[in-house]
């Protein structure tokens, strides 16, 4: 094989594309969703409901403007939670603790926000910082435990979720219960300067722009920056990264703090856009749904946005389903099956693609003349 043919082949990459990664990813996630819908359809049929009717109801209801807005509104915190999870995944860290981190962020933002007086933009900015700090601090505990004591972050963050709930409940009940005129038990309400404006008659919070901004920053930092490259390298092969001079402990701590900081924001759409105070009727499940969204979106920014909207859509159509006398819990079943199929499909497709890439590369090299021509 001459040098010339090597050069020829390199300068002519078009003809030699390995399987298109983006296309394969999108196709396999789509396939996972379709397979899940089919399985859930069988379940519906077996339990005596018409799956086609159920799905057409979902689609009809879901395509109304109201429901679309609701889907976006529900997707707003999920995007953030999923980004938090994806940062961990990219470093090969499994942050199960987004749930606890977002509660911490939301609670401390509610407290701090109620007791300071600032002009609107500054007030919101301060609360974003507070929420990120609280989330990062909570995640930081797991990071320190992992780096110093070798505690698996999965165990640590699960435990920290439970502890976060107790700590917040205790702080709330003993220190920050606000005895206002209403019967609602809540923390002291935020002044209006800390509210995020509504859009579409209160159907969507403007916080969605912050969510999208977070996704954008995630993309720039993790996929485009030097730091992101080191993060992904450590996640892909920690030993090789360390050999190349990248301190894995530092990456673990940084990734965990970033993940926690982002997670801390996930409760703010609700706090700043809706409730304006912390109370027992707080949202939950963002952490776990965030894991699902990150998995379905393959940790990719665009994938995360689309998956979060799909998740929000499924949540939004629960109501109409119930009205049509179709058990709304089928939505939960669909979500769960999607999760399973997405993991399985990713694994199967990943292996196939790896094999095909290897085979094609070998085949292309075996035929240098054909390729060079």
């Amino acid at each position, binding site marked *: *094989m001459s*040098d010339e043919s*090597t*050069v020829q*082949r*390199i300068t002519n*990459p078009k003809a*030699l594309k*390995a399987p298109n990664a983006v296309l394969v990813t999108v196709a396999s996630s789509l396939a996972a969703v379709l397979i899940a819908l089919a399985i859930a359809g069988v379940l519906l049929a077996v339990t005596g409901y018409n799956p086609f009717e159920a799905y057409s109801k979902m689609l009809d209801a879901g395509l109304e403007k109201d429901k679309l807005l609701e889907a976006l509104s529900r997707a707003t915190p999920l995007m953030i939670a999923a980004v938090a999870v994806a940062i961990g995944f990219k470093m090969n860290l499994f942050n199960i603790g987004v749930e606890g981190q977002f509660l911490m962020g939301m609670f401390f933002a509610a407290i701090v926000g109620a007791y300071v007086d600032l002009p609107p933009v500054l007030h919101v900015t301060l609360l974003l910082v507070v929420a990120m700090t609280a989330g990062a601090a909570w995640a930081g505990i797991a990071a320190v435990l992992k780096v110093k004591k070798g505690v698996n972050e999965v165990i640590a963050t699960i435990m920290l979720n439970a502890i976060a709930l107790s700590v917040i409940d205790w702080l709330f009940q003993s220190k920050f219960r606000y005895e206002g005129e209403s019967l609602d038990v809540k923390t002291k309400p935020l002044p209006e300067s800390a509210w995020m404006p509504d859009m579409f008659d209160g159907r969507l919070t403007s916080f969605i722009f912050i969510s999208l901004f977070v996704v954008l920053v995630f993309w*720039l930092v993790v996929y*485009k*920056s*030097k730091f992101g*490259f*080191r993060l*992904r*390298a450590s996640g*892909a*092969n920690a*030993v*090789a*990264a*360390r*050999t*190349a*001079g*990248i*301190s894995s402990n530092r990456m673990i701590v940084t990734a965990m703090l970033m993940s926690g900081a982002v997670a801390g924001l996930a409760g703010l759409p609700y706090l700043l856009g809706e409730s304006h105070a912390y109370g027992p009727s707080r949202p939950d499940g963002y952490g776990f749904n965030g894991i699902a969204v990150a998995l379905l979106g393959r940790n990719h920014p665009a994938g995360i946005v689309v998956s979060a909207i799909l998740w929000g859509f499924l949540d939004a159509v629960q109501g109409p389903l119930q009205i049509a006398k179709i058990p709304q819990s089928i939505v939960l079943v669909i979500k769960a099956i999607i999760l399973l199929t997405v993991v399985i499909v990713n694994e199967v497709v990943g292996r196939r693609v*790896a094999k095909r*890439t*290897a085979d*094609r*590369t*070998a085949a*292309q*090299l075996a035929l240098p003349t054909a*390729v060079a021509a």
Partner: protein
Amino acid sequence: MATDTLAVQLSGIEKRFPGVIANHDVNLNVRAGTIHAIVGENGAGKSTLMKTLYGMHQPEAGTITVFGAPHVFKSPSDAIAAGIGMVHQHFMLADNLTVLENIVLGSEPAARGVVQYDEARRRLEAIMDQSGTHVDLDAPVSELGVGQRQRVEILKVLFRGAKVLILDEPTAVLVPQEVDELFSNLHRLVTDGATIIFISHKLDEVLTVSDDITVIRAGTTVAEVKPDAVTRSKLAELMVGSELPSPHGRTSEVGTTIRLSIDGLTLAGPGEKHVLDEVSFEIREGEVLGIAGVEGNGQFELCEAIIGLAKPMSGHITIDGTDVTHASPHERLIGGLSYIPFDRHREGLLLSAPLWENTLLGRDADEQFQKGPFIDAAAAKADSRSIIERFDVRTPSETVPAYALSGGNQQKLLVGRELSSHPRVLIAAHPTRGVDIGAQAAIWEKLRAARDAGLAVLLISADLEELIGLSDRILVMFDGRINARLTPAEATPELLGTYMTGGVQEVAS
């Protein structure tokens, strides 16, 4: 009870991996009731051959005959069914279970789903009495020493009815007394009718314990000898090959500036023994210092200490006049150090990442790849293409993932990356291991060119042709120490074999 019946016969075995021929034309005749040693250097293909015999992978050609019957082993369970058992070098025991539980694990005698421990115990006690290998069956494995764990492994194999036992470097982990015990156990097993295949590169042991010896070199069987008909030095020569290249004439001169200086480097090991003991040497500008030695004698730890991944107990490391003993790996890499690691998959590459990200790894701080706060992907790709071109990496493009390349091309990419950061000191650990001849020649040429341009190279290799062909001086490492200093001209296979297996140079130069 040596007989002329063949317990195991391998003929014409060939085993290929992408880009490498690990075994070819291997012929092995193991007489029943004997201890048959297989000797060869690291990477000569001993382990590959034994994995073939144990059904862990399938050969491309050749036949396996066990007690006269031909067999095709699709998995280890087929091999076990044919009476072959393997005692792995790295024990595969569950620490939290008892000895008895470990032994029956996977082949539990059971009645209606209930494990018959009493029956297992009776059978095991019979086996222990017969073989003379005793262990406390109720002790948790976590409390056992290395020698006892090995006995558990042997019992495990016997419990499964093995008549042919493969022991992969069984003495590597043992202290001398344990080695003696092991050998007497092996003799007893053989007297009882078992056949033992014993893999080793420790020549003294092989000569003491075995009835027959087969030598493997460069993937093929080169000789079968009787221990009483061969001397230690003859065996060493068979093992490393008698035709060594003459030292390559070089046109450039070794400079005078000291680029790397190691002074009294000592590194603590897991036990009492130090894995590096007072290692000292210097490498000058444009000089290649070769380190010979059987793997596992401190070479890996030496590299880890130099790049900063292992903390020395004492001693100093100086790169280009700067003491870096306490510097971070990153600081050392920035300071002009490069490293071609032992295991390219584990330490060198991001297999699932595209080639251009692989060539960027470790060099991402370089000015040419910065574009404001971001990485200049276009520049990184262009740089990667240039490495691919200059180092003749056979690939369709710089965007394919690293796993798609053959071993030789991955290695060329890695060497290209390490040389492209313009190092002043390069550690090259087995730079051509597992690559084809073409890639090997290409890598050697690049290393020579870099040396001529003033690079100081620490070359660690098990390939004596490589060591002698490239090095200006050769040190032999054994047991964490440097026990010989030679010039390539005076290095003979016999001499190297002696030092590599523990002989000490009489006059330290």
